[in-house]
C-alpha cells in the first residue's frame, strides 16, 4: 500500500500524458480532460492510499540503478504533504486552464516528474528529479511562447547544481545522501548554506522580483503558473528535510534566524511590490511570493509549532498558486472572494496558515517575535494591496490573453481554500503534524516542548488549534460563519432569480460603482525599487580605457590565440616548462 502511495500518482499522470498525446493525434482533442481527470485521480489515490495505510515512513530499495545512484524510494508524511501541495494546484490548473492536448501532455509529464522528485529517498534523487522537472517545464514554457525565460533557466540551473553539490557534500561528510541514513553530524554549516541558497533560488524566495513574479509577465499564463505551482514547493522541500537530517535541528541557531529573516524580507518585498502593481495581473504575481515568504519565516523558526505552521503555510501556498491564475476578470463577487482568499482573509486556509506562522514567531523568542510583527505588517499590506487590486485594470480580460478564465475554476479553488480553512484541524492533524513529527522527532531537540505533538497544537476535541500563545477555533467559528454566508447568499440568489435578475455572482458588491479613472495610484512608491535598474545601468555604463578593451573581448583574444599559432604554442610550452621545473 505504501508503495502504491508512491508510484500510483506519477504513474497515473504518465499514462494520462500518453493518452493525451494520442488524443492530440486523434479527434476530438480530449487530452486536457484526460490529464485533468488523471490529476484528480492521482490526488484521490494519494490521499486514499495514505489514509488507508499505517501512515508510517517506509523506504524501498529495488536494487536498480538509474542515472548514477541506486533507486531508493521513501514514503512518509513529508512526502505525502508535499505531493498534495504539488498535486492540488496542478489539478486545479490542469482542469480549469485552456491547454491543447500536446500542452496537456507536457504539463502532465512535468507534474509526474515533480511527484517522482518527491518520491526519492535521497537528496541526490531529489536533485535529479528537480532537474528533470525543470527541463520539462522549460520545454513547456518555450513551446507555449518561443521566448526563453532566461531568468527561470539560469536560476533553476544554479539551484539544481547547488542541490547536487549539497548531496555530494553530504555524501563526502556522511557517506550517503539518503534521508533515512544521513548521520546527524553530516549536515554542517557549509552544506546547509549551499542547500539553503539552492532552495531560495529554486522557489524564487528573494526580497526582490524573482522568476516567480516574472512568470506572470508572459502573454499566456498556463505554462508559467504551472511551473510556479510545481517548483516552489519542490524548492522548500529540502529545507524541511534538513530538519530530519539534523534530528530536528539545523546546524546552528543562527541559520534559523537568518532564514526566518530572509522569509520576512521576502514577504515584505512581495507585499510592497503588490501594493504598487499597475495591473491586477501584476498584483496576482506577488501572491505566491508573499505566501512563500511567510511559510519560510515559519520554517526558519526551528520550533515544533513553527514547523507545523510552515507545513500548513506550504499547503496554503499551494492553494494560492492554484487559485491566483484562475481569478476571473472584472469586479464581481467571485473575483473579490478569490482575491480576498489569496490575500489571507479569514477563514480560509491561507489565513490559518499565516496565523499559525505569526503565532509561532511570537512564541519562538523575542527576535523572531519582531520578525512576526514585520510578517503581520506584510500581511496587512497584502490585504490593502488586494483591495486596491480590485480597482486595477485586468490586462487579461476581454479578448486578450487569458481570456475566458471562467468563474468555476476560481469558485472551486476558493471553495477548496475555505473548506480547508474550516477543516484546518484535519489538515494540521493528518498532514502537517505527522510530517513535522517525521523530521522533528520528540526525543530530539525540544524535550521541554515535548517535540511535535497533537496535544500541544490542537485544542480539546480537535475543534481548533490552541497553542501556548493563542487559539483559533476553526471548526466551531469558521464553520458557522461559512454556513451562514452560504445560506444567505443562496437565499438571496434564489430570491433574485425569482425576480428574474442576473446572477448575484456576476455583479455586486462593486459593480454599481464605477472604477476610478485612472486606476488607483500605489499607496507608496516601493523604496529601493530603482536600485537594481540603476545598478544595471551603471554597470552597463562602465567603460574600460580603450587600450585595455581588447583584453576583455574573447573574439580578439581568440584571433590572437589562433593566428599566434606555432609561436603561441611554443611560448606556452616553454613558459609552462619553466614554471614546473623551477
Amino acid at each position, binding site marked *: 500500500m505504501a508503495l502504491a502511495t508512491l508510484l500510483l500518482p506519477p504513474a497515473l499522470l504518465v499514462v494520462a500524458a500518453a493518452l493525451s498525446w494520442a488524443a492530440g493525434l486523434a479527434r476530438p482533442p480530449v487530452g486536457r480532460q484526460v490529464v485533468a481527470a488523471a490529476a484528480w485521480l492521482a490526488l484521490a489515490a494519494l490521499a486514499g492510499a495514505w489514509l488507508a495505510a499505517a501512515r508510517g515512513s517506509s523506504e524501498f530499495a529495488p536494487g536498480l540503478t538509474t542515472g548514477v545512484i541506486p533507486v531508493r524510494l521513501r514514503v512518509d508524511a513529508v512526502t505525502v504533504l508535499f505531493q498534495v501541495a504539488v498535486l492540488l494546484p496542478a489539478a486545479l490548473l490542469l482542469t480549469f486552464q485552456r491547454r491543447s492536448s500536446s500542452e496537456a501532455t507536457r504539463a502532465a509529464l512535468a507534474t509526474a516528474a515533480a511527484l517522482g522528485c518527491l518520491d526519492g529517498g535521497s537528496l541526490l534523487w531529489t536533485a535529479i528529479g528537480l532537474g528533470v522537472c525543470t527541463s520539462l517545464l522549460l520545454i513547456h514554457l518555450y513551446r507555449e511562447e518561443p521566448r526563453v525565460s532566461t531568468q527561470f533557466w539560469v536560476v533553476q540551473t544554479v539551484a539544481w547544481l547547488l542541490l547536487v553539490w549539497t548531496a555530494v557534500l553530504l555524501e563526502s561528510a556522511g557517506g550517503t545522501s539518503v534521508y533515512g541514513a544521513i548521520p546527524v553530524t553530516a549536515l554542517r554549516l557549509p552544506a546547509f548554506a549551499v542547500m539553503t541558497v539552492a532552495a531560495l533560488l529554486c522557489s524564487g524566495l528573494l526580497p526582490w522580483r524573482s522568476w516567480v513574479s516574472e512568470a506572470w509577465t508572459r502573454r499566456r499564463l498556463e505554462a508559467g503558473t504551472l511551473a510556479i505551482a510545481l517548483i516552489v514547493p519542490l524548492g522548500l522541500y529540502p529545507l524541511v528535510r534538513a530538519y530530519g537530517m539534523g534530528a530536528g535541528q539545523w546546524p546552528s541557531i543562527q541559520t534559523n534566524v537568518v532564514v526566518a529573516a530572509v522569509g520576512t524580507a521576502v514577504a515584505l518585498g512581495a507585499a510592497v511590490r503588490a501594493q504598487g502593481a499597475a495591473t491586477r495581473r501584476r498584483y496576482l504575481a506577488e501572491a505566491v511570493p508573499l505566501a512563500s515568504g511567510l511559510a519560510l519565516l515559519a520554517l526558519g523558526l526551528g520550533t515544533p509549532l513553527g514547523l507545523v505552521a510552515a507545513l500548513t503555510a506550504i499547503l496554503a501556498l499551494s492553494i494560492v498558486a492554484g487559485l491566483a491564475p484562475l481569478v476571473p476578470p472584472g469586479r464581481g463577487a467571485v473575483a473579490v472572494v478569490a482575491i480576498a482568499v489569496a490575500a489571507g482573509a479569514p477563514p480560509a486556509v491561507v489565513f490559518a496558515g499565516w496565523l499559525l506562522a505569526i503565532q509561532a514567531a511570537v512564541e519562538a523568542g523575542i527576535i523572531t517575535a519582531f520578525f512576526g510583527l514585520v510578517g503581520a505588517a506584510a500581511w496587512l499590506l497584502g490585504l490593502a494591496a488586494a483591495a486596491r487590486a480590485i480597482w486595477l485594470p485586468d490586462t487579461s480580460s476581454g479578448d486578450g490573453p487569458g481570456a475566458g478564465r471562467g468563474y468555476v475554476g476560481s469558485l472551486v479553488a476558493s471553495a477548496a481554500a475555505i473548506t480547508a480553512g474550516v477543516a484546518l484541524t484535519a489538515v494540521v492533524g493528518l498532514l502537517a503534524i505527522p510530517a513535522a513529527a517525521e523530521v522533528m522527532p520528540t526525543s530530539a531537540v525540544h524535550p521541554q516542548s515535548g517535540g511535535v505533538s497533537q496535544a500541544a497544537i490542537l485544542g480539546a476535541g480537535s*475543534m481548533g488549534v490552541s497553542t501556548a500563545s493563542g487559539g483559533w477555533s476553526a471548526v466551531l467559528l469558521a464553520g458557522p460563519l461559512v454556513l451562514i454566508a452560504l445560506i444567505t447568499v443562496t437565499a438571496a440568489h434564489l430570491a433574485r432569480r425569482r425576480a428574474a435578475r442576473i446572477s448575484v455572482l456576476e455583479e455586486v458588491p462593486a459593480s454599481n460603482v464605477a472604477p476610478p479613472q485612472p486606476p488607483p495610484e500605489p499607496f507608496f512608491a516601493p523604496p529601493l525599487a530603482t536600485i537594481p535598474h540603476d545598478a544595471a545601468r551603471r554597470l552597463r555604463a562602465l567603460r574600460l580605457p580603450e587600450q585595455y578593451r581588447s583584453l576583455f573581448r574573447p573574439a580578439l583574444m581568440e584571433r590572437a590565440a589562433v593566428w599566434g599559432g606555432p609561436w603561441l604554442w611554443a611560448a606556452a610550452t616553454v613558459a609552462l616548462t619553466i614554471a614546473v621545473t623551477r
Partner: protein
Amino acid sequence: MSWSAIGLHLLALLVYPGVLLILIVGFLAEGAAGLALGRDGMRAAVSGPAVQIRNATAGSWPLLLAAALLTALAATQLAVPANPLAPLERNLLVAAFSLAATIWLCWARAWSASGARASLVVQACWLVALLSPALLSETLRPQVLGAVAVPAQLPLKAMSGLLYLVCLPVLLLLAGDIPGPHLAAPRILLWMPFCGLGVSVFLPPAADDVGGSLRFVGATLCLALVTIAVAALLRQPLAAGLRPLYLRLASVLAGLVLVVAVVTAALTSAI
C-alpha cells in the same frame, strides 16, 4: 463535536458579543457620532444608522453580510466577560485581521487614494500598538494581555494604548478622506470590535458576571466617545493645521512604541 459547543459558538457569533451586541453598541456610538459630528440634529442622528443599514442592505448587501460576519468573528475574540468562547480559543491576530479584512473590504466598495493611504498608515500603527505588548508577553490572548501588570512592561502598554486611541478615528472612518456615504453602514459594525479590542488589551479584565459585562460595554462606549471627541477635535477649523500632522504623529508614536518595545525586550532579557 458536541451540540452545546456549536450552540455556544453560534451564540457568540450572532448574539453576544457577536452581531447583536455589535449592532447595539454600533447604533449608540453612531448616534453619538451623528450628534457630535453631524449637522442634522437629534432625530437624524438617531434614525440615521437605521436608514444607512436599510440602504446598504438594498444596495450592497453582500458587502454588509461579509462585514457583519467578519466583525462578529473579531468580536468573539474580545475579553468580554461571560464570552461563550473559552479564553483558550481567543486570539488577538484573528480579531486584528478580521477587522483589517473588513476595512479593506469597505475600501474595495469605494475608493479614494488619499483615504486609503491614510487608512493603511493608521492600520500599520494600530497593528504596532496591538502587537507590541503581545510580543513581549509572548501571548496573543486578549484577556492575558489585559491582565499583564509587569512594571517593566507598563510604559510600553501605556504608550501602545495611547497609540491605539490616536488610531481609532481613522480606523472607524470618522477622520480622513472618506469616499461618499458607501462606508457609513459598515462603520456601524466596527465600533464594538475596535473599541472592545482596545478595552480587552489595555484594561484589566472585568469580573465574569453581568456587572463585569456591563462594565466592559461601558468602557467600550467610553472609548467610542473619546474617539468621537478626538474626531470632532480633528474636524474643528482650529485643528486645520493639526490634520496634516495627524498621520505623522501616529507614525512617530508608532516608532516610539517600537523603540520602547525593543528597549524593554533588551532589558527584560538581560535581567
